[in-house]
């Protein structure tokens, strides 16, 4: 375990909402299990899921798509670099592995070939390192054992492990293998897994007082360790507290207990729990060649020199304490074997691998591991030292034989000695300082001077650096100094005195005993010089070891080394007995003695007894006990040929030959066998590969099955759509053959079911221009552009809008066309009617001079038609409101705006007369009428405009006329009132008054009449005025007024009429128009501007001049002349009385 990572994980403990990452490992049959599991997952939790499924690297995965339909979580295929967040599911992409660092997913490339890949293990290991106790792993259906190693990592870092109940898995290989590690926290059905995870973490978080729990655990730790010590005999009290507390705490969470005291009770009462805790406390990750580069250094620094330096008789001794399930021990053994092979040396190597956990040792002795672990072994060693089994592999016997596994506690049991190499990896890190301080002196004692110590990557020799010098600090390879070994006295008596428990099995004591026997020089000496000579042989007679002087009994003859068989070497007299006794002992396995034998050599004869003692390991110990003194042979003492002896000898010789032949045959067989074995292995690996391919294929198959289901639904939908739609539709393929059509197409193409596949061109169509359609289809298929056209049937009764779309296959190739017909007959009819209506309306508008405008209040724009533009003098048809209002004068602008606003607000109809900007009388006026029209889309104001200039002008004129009229009437009243007043001053009598007033009014009325009676086109002239004045008096009188034409302005008329009236009445009363004889001449002349009117009364009698100034009439005349801007003078002749008016006529 890596301390750094653990602290990282612990540091985040306070965080309640912390993300927990659940790794899900699955293989064949996994899709279903994952689906069932994730269906129960809720996106609101703080869990994120990463699915590692064995996938076919060459096949696109549909997993994400398929899972997304069954879970409310967001599912996506990882592409590397994602930050893992809660509520999401990340799926491994095909052809890659996944790892996690700092909560971010990374893609990894596989280093191993297919079949040896372990993506689940790899991911779990990185997850464990990254997330510590916030990592959970789930192992679901699948064959093989991927995940089991990763699970161990998760557990080591305090994470949670769950496994699908094997009975519910389609393939139970992976779940069973995982369960076999004994480290699984929960075994559940897939749908219960998420609940279990949530419960676990809920508990973990609920205890904000997590610390508090830790504290109670700490308080009870001593007691718990005591219980474990009493039960299994191993004392954990010296182990690192933090590790112990965390692991005990985990158990409390898994068991859902309240606190540590409850757990203590449980441990006391439940031996099974005690066992589980023991195992839990011992969890550590191990694998073959863990940290391969360190192993490489070790090989260079220690293994190679040891092998090189070893003599034939030397034994290289290696001790591996805390070997757990044996991977480390086998790794080192393989390394030694390989080194020896490369150096072509045969060296004897003894490896002692020890551990306190018997269960682990059992796994180690078994020496079979999941196929997946094979990848850890360097390739060169794989074939040499492993034998493939079904889904697993076994370490070959050669390696196995090098190792002795035994239960042994380095702190409690006496250590091994004379060791060349101690490899103790990742054990010290679990020890507290005190235990570490004990362990290192033990290693020092066990190691020979100059021997090597190999530690784990995060372990150091601490303060023992004076006895262990680093050979390679980073690889943790140390060299023991040459100091004298000191027996570690601290091997506590108290502990040794109470070796309780079942850990002290027979195997435990045997190796040390044997070691003592072998390693004592004294014993060696005794054996060599004083003890009877012995042989240790296999039941077949092969010599394993010998002591003492055996020259008398054995004959060393030059020959192949294989002639190492005791019976072959035995001298005559020994051989027969030897063969016989071996056979018997091998059969009966009892100590046997063969007495009174005589061994015959070149030098003499020795009488002896032969004792055969079967040993526990299957070998047989042969002891040659001398019975008599050696009898030397005389030179001349030849012995006769013993026929029997010679016969036996020849038989034996034959037997030996036969054996040799047999041996050769056996060897041949073995070679053949070896070959078969290797081809078998090849087959196995092929099988393995096939199996993983099969798994991947079955995943693909599952995915495809789901896809097919979906496709059938989609297809059914499509079929129903085709059958039910009223839309005529044809699909043609790239050769324009009919692929599919809807029933509604019958009105256009009379297809029958059998027409599918027929070229469209062959089918008769009701269309008028079918060729054009066919041509258009061709074009669409060539250029891939959508085409729209209008087609009608032969009778032109019905019309369709035809849309031809290119039909694209999934990869985007043009692969035909789709024809969709939409009947537009009614729409067309409507369109035509609408067009007519529009034309009619336009005509009406044009004739009436109405312009149409439309205001879009949201955009503030106005639309005008042509006449509107002409009216307003604007070019654009669509323009902002302000621009349209610009030609109006300011008042009108405001009025229009106001009217628009109120129309929009309350719907009041608009009716405004607006004046265009312009000068005075030339300004034109328009009337705007409009109304708000609310359509579902928006409100708008629609209305008409028309020119009202003339009406407006007429109105203005009328108003002016009325004013004038009013003025005149008032004036008239003034005149009359003045007239009456004046008459009143002047008249003598009422009739006189009435007469005066009436005649003057009449005169005025007459002249007024004149203005009205004057024919149009001719101006009222002076002559008219004179005629009118004289009319009442002259009647038929022949009076011809004469002179040039002088117009009389209206304002002059009153004055002129009054003046002429006075003159006339005067003439009528006193002059020629009355009773006096005479005549009247009226004439006028004009000189430049001045008009001179001559009123000449020619009397028959004499005229008596008067001043003419007297009287009202005269005043009136004078005043009238003034009003005319002129003057009046009176002249008298003998018979004439001439009145002359000079004035300038007003001709403006």
């Amino acid at each position, binding site marked *: 375990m890596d301390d750094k990572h653990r602290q990282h994980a612990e540091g985040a403990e306070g965080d309640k909402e912390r993300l927990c990452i659940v790794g899900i490992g699955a293989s064949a049959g996994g899709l279903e299990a994952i689906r069932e599991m994730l269906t129960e997952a809720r996106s609101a939790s703080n869990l994120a899921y990463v699915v590692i499924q064995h996938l076919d690297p060459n096949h696109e995965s549909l997993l994400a798509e398929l899972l997304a339909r069954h879970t409310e979580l967001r599912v996506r295929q990882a592409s590397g670099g994602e930050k893992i967040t809660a509520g999401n599911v990340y799926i491994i992409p095909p052809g890659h592995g996944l790892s996690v660092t700092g909560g971010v997913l990374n893609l990894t490339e596989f280093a191993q070939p297919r079949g040896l890949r372990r993506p689940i293990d790899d991911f779990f290991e990185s997850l464990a390192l990254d997330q510590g106790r916030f990592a959970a792993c789930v192992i679901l259906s699948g064959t093989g054992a991927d995940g089991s190693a990763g699970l161990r990592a998760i557990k080591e870092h305090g994470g949670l492990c769950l496994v699908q109940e094997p009975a519910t898995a389609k393939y139970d290989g992976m779940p069973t293998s995982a369960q076999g590690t004994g480290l699984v926290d929960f075994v559940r059905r897939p749908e219960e897994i998420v609940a279990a995870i949530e419960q676990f973490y809920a508990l973990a978080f609920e205890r904000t007082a997590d610390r508090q729990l830790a504290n109670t655990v700490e308080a009870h730790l001593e007691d718990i360790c005591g219980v474990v010590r009493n039960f299994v005999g191993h004392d954990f009290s010296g182990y690192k507290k933090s590790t112990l507390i965390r692991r005990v705490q985990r158990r409390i969470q898994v068991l859902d207990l309240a606190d540590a005291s409850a757990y203590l009770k449980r441990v006391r009462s439940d031996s099974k729990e005690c066992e589980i805790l023991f195992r839990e406390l011992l969890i550590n990750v191990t694998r073959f060649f863990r940290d391969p580069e360190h192993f490489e250094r070790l090989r260079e620094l220690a293994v190679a020199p040891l092998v090189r330096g070893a003599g034939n008789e030397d034994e290289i001794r290696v001790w591996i304490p805390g070997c757990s399930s044996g991977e480390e021990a086998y790794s080192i053994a393989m390394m030694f074997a390989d080194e020896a092979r490369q150096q072509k040396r045969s060296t004897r190597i003894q490896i002692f691998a020890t551990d306190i956990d018997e269960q682990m040792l059992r796994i180690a002795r078994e020496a079979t591991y999941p196929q997946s672990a094979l990848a850890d072994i360097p390739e060169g060693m794989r074939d040499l030292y492993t034998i493939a089994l079904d889904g697993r592999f076994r370490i070959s016997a050669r390696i196995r034989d090098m190792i002795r596994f035994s239960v042994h506690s380095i702190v409690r049991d006496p250590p091994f000695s004379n060791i060349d190499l101690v490899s103790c990896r990742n054990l010290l890190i679990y020890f507290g300082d005190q235990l570490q301080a004990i362990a290192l002196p033990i290693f020092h004692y066990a190691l020979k001077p100059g021997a090597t110590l190999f530690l784990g990557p995060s372990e150091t020799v601490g303060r023992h650096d004076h006895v262990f010098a680093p050979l390679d600090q980073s690889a943790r390879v140390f060299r023991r100094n040459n100091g004298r070994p000191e027996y570690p006295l601290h091997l506590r008596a108290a502990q040794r005195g109470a070796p309780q428990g079942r850990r002290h099995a027979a195997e435990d004591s045997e190796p040390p005993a044997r070691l003592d026997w072998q390693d004592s020089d004294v014993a060696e000496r005794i054996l060599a010089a004083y003890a009877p000579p012995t042989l240790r042989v296999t039941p077949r007679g092969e010599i394993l070891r010998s002591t003492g002087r055996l020259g008398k009994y054995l004959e060393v003859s030059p020959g192949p080394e294989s002639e190492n068989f005791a019976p072959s070497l035995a001298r005559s007299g020994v051989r027969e007995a030897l063969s016989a006794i071996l056979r018997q002992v091998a059969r009966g396995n009892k100590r046997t003695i063969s007495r009174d034998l005589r061994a015959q050599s070149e030098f003499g004869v020795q009488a002896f007894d032969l004792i055969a003692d079967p040993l526990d390991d299957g070998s047989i110990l042969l002891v040659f006990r001398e019975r008599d003194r050696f009898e030397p042979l005389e030179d001349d003492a030849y012995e006769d040929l013993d026929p029997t002896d010679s016969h036996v000898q020849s038989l034996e010789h034959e037997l030996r030959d036969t054996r040799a032949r047999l041996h050769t045959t056996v060897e041949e067989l073995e070679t053949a066998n070896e070959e078969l074995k290797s081809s078998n292995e090849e087959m196995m690996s092929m099988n393995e590969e096939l199996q993983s391919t099969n798994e991947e294929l079955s995943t693909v198959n599952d995915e495809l099955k789901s896809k097919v289901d979906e496709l059938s639904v989609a297809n059914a939908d499509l079929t129903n759509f085709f059958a039910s739609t009223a839309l005529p539709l044809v699909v043609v393929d790239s050769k324009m053959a009919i692929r599919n059509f809807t029933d509604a197409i019958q009105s256009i193409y009379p297809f029958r079911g059998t027409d599918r596949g027929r070229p469209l061109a062959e089918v008769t169509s009701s269309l008028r221009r079918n060729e054009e359609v066919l041509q258009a289809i061709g074009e669409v298929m060539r250029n891939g552009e959508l085409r729209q056209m209008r087609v009608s049937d032969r009778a032109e009764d019905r019309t369709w809008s035809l849309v031809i779309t290119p039909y694209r296959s999934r990869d985007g190739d043009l692969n035909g066309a789709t024809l969709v017909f939409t009947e537009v007959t009614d729409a067309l009819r409507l369109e035509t009617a609408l067009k007519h209506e529009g034309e009619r309306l336009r005509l009406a508008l044009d004739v009436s001079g109405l312009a149409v405008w439309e205001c879009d209040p949201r955009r503030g724009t106005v639309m005008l038609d042509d006449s509107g533009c002409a009216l307003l003098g604007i070019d654009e048809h669509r323009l902002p409101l302000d621009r349209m209002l610009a030609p109006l004068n300011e008042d009108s602008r405001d009025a229009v705006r106001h009217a628009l606003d109120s129309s929009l607000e309350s719907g009041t109809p608009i009716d405004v007369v607006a004046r265009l900007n312009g000068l005075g009388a030339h300004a034109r006026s328009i009337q705007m009428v409009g109304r708000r029209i609310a359509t579902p889309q928006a409100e708008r104001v629609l209305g008409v405009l028309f020119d009202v200039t003339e009406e407006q002008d007429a109105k203005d004129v009328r108003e002016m006329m009325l*004013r004038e009229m*009013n*003025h005149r009437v*008032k*004036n008239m*009243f*003034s*005149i*009359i*009132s*003045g*007239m009456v*007043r*004046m008459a009143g*001053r002047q008249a003598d009598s009422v009739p006189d008054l009435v007469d005066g007033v009436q005649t*003057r009014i009449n005169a005025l009325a007459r002249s007024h009449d004149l203005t009205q009676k004057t024919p149009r086109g001719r101006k009222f002239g002076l002559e008219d005025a004179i005629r009118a004045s004289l009319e009442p008096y002259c009647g038929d009188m022949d009076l011809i007024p004469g002179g040039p034409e002088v117009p009389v302005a209206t*304002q002059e008329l*009153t*004055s002129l009429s*009054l003046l002429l009236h006075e003159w006339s009445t005067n003439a009528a009363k006193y002059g020629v128009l009355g009773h006096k004889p005479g005549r009247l001449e009226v004439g006028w002349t004009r000189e430049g501007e001045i008009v001179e009117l001559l009123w000449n009364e020619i009397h028959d009698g004499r005229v008596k001049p008067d001043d003419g100034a007297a009287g009202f009439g005269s*005043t*009136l005349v*004078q*005043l*009238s002349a*003034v*009003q*005319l*801007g002129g*003057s009046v003078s009176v002249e008298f002749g003998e018979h004439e009385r001439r009145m002359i008016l000079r004035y300038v006529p*007003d001709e403006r």
Partner: protein
Amino acid sequence: MSLTSGKKTTARQRVMICEDEVIVAMDLQMLVEEFGYDVIGPFPGLREAFAALGSERPDIALLDVRLKDGEVFPLADRLRDMGVGLVFQSGHVYDDEIHAKYPKAGCCLKPISPAGLRSALQSAESLSTA
């Protein structure tokens, strides 16, 4: 040419009459003289009235709004500036304009009532700054 009749006394106030209707002008002249004023005019048009102002200076002016040769306002302005009290004969048509331009001016409705005219002249007399 003056139609002024009667003796002239320096003490008598002088009223300028502008009126283009002969009868009315004559009637006014008589009324004004009866009230004891001297009359300048009557003048039928602006031309004549302006010409008269060259030599005469009235105390009060009795003005018709529409004269022969246009509206009386240029003349009224001149008279106001000279400090002459103004009395308009109005036919309601120009009332607003008159009130706006000559707030102090008196007004007599057409047709004239002698009493109304008299009081209008009297109040104009008191306003006259001459």
